[in-house]
């Protein structure tokens, strides 16, 4: 507040100087007129802030802003001039500082033009402040978004590979070592391949969908050793292999397909992953057989919630995840906007 009023005291001084020069007045007379007028106009010009607010630079059309700015400045300046005349008249009739007061013609021109200029200046300053504030808000929003995305990332990295998968795989290897040493070695290689591929993702922002699907394939290959004939896998990449997705996005879904799906079905079945790109959208669906009578509450839903949170942090409402169960088939469908290397 103090800097604002200080600036207007300077304006009062400037007005006084102009009056002395242009309206043939003494310094005393000019100051008696200009200082109170500057004080009043300081308040009038506060309205510029609201004018700027109601006509944001981003949305309002340029002619409209110019017209409004001119009208507002002319109106307030005219009001100011009327006030100035009344004030000078009052000083004159009371006989205060007689003779030292500015003449009328000089006063009108100086006060009106200065009023318009000052009002426009106030508008400009208001727009500047608003822009500054908005950019700071935008920065904060971006920052908050990044923090959220990072958190989701960390949570999912921790949850992405179920340790029981490793224990079960090691147990399979332990079984194979005596019965089928070559098979044990194959299993070790499959497991190593999957682990290496998933570790290589560390620090990668996004990876091509084709790579994500290869990873899922590695994972299912390992699980196939454990489940034998009970598990089949069908991966179909129709189009959109080049589209970028968060790494291991599908991993929790594919894991669920095993632990909450295949595991509960006597005869097992196929985990089907289908992906395709249609224009600017990428669709990925994971299907697996499930037992409608399986005990509920075994799935904590953490995996799906994680995937959802990651999609949301990256794409907001533009991405969606739907999980449905119909006729013994569990299906998770993801739809997200296409993102590629070029941006």
């Amino acid at each position, binding site marked *: 507040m103090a800097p604002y009023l200080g600036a207007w005291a300077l304006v009062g001084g400037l007005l006084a100087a102009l009056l002395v020069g242009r309206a043939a007045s003494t310094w005393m007379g000019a100051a008696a007129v200009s200082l109170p007028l500057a004080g009043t106009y300081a308040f009038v010009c506060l309205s510029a802030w609201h004018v700027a607010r109601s006509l944001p630079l981003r949305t309002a059309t340029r002619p409209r802003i110019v017209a409004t700015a001119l009208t507002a400045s002319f109106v307030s300046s005219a009001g100011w001039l009327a006030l100035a005349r009344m004030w000078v008249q009052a000083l004159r009739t009371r006989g205060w500082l007689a003779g030292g007061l500015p003449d009328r013609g000089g006063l009108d021109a100086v006060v009106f033009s200065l009023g318009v200029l000052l009002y426009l200046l106030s508008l400009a300053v208001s727009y500047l402040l608003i822009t500054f504030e908005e950019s700071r808000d935008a920065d904060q929003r971006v920052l908050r978004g990044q923090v959220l995305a990072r958190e989701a990332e960390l949570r999912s990295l921790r949850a992405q590979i179920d340790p029981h998968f490793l224990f079960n795989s090691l*147990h*399979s290897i332990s079984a194979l070592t005596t019965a089928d040493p070559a098979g044990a070695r194959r299993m070790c290689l499959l497991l190593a391949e999957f682990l290496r591929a998933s570790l290589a993702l560390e620090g990668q922002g996004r990876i091509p969908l084709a790579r994500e699907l290869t990873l899922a394939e590695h994972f299912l290959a390992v699980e196939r050793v454990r489940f034998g004939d009970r598990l089949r896998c069908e991966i179909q990449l129709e189009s959109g292999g080049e589209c970028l997705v968060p790494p291991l996005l599908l991993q929790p879904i594919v894991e669920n397909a095993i632990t909450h799906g295949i595991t509960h079905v*006597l005869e097992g079945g196929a985990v089907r992953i289908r992906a395709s790109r249609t224009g600017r959208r990428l669709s990925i669906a994971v299907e697996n057989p499930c037992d409608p*009578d399986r005990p509920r509450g075994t799935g904590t839903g953490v995996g799906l919630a994680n995937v959802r949170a990651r999609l949301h942090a990256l794409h907001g409402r533009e991405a969606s995840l739907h999980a449905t169960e119909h006729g013994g088939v569990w299906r998770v469908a993801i739809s997200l906007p296409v993102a590629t290397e070029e941006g």
Partner: protein
Amino acid sequence: MTQDPLRTVIVDDEPLSRAVVREYLARHAGVEVVAECGNGFDAVKAVAELAPDLMFLDVQMPKLNGFEVLELLGRDVLVVFITAYDQYALRAFEVHAVDYLLKPFSAERFDEALDRARERLRARAGSDGDAPLDVAGLVATARPKTGPLERVLIRDGPQVHVVPAERIDYVEAQDDYVCFKADGRQYLKDQTMTAVEASMDPARFVRIHRSYLLNIDRIARVELYAKDSRVAILRDGTKLPVSRAGYARLSKLL
């Protein structure tokens, strides 16, 4: 001195996992694998028909999990749980499992479990008059963490029925048994009415009488039958007695 062989059943839905147990058992004399089962239904059937001494039991299996298998079998057989998950260990000991092996396990660790089972068998043979343990009850007390039952498991000789809770019309006490009526069929189970009541969802099943636990969705109306005595008429026309305390409980729910 010759001993009867230790008769065992291996239950695991993964062939490789069964192979490990089979291999470790092959190193011991006096052990016979009488059956290998890939799911809980087969396990119940095998144990009922073959009456083995010891069962190696996986926890996570299709249709029936290890605990459900045990609940259906009672205490006729000793159990060693085998799983990759450590979170069931507490529950396993609550149902008096002999041991709890975490995949993958070594031959030494496996032998330890086998020794424990033999010890338990000897102790059991030594005290023949041992009162049977209510395993079903223990399983039920170990359950509260998972909430009310969503399905009731009933063993009928070697056969197992899985009855979803919402399909049960009512439960009737019959001497030492309870009888579940569902889908026009009756299923007898060796359990007390109190245990059944405690395991079912209290918002759906109400004890309307000392001998009846009723699914409130099935009620058509309640009529006054005599002074202080009411009768519940179900949608299919069945009439069940309602005691005074039962009526109070029923009115509170409706």
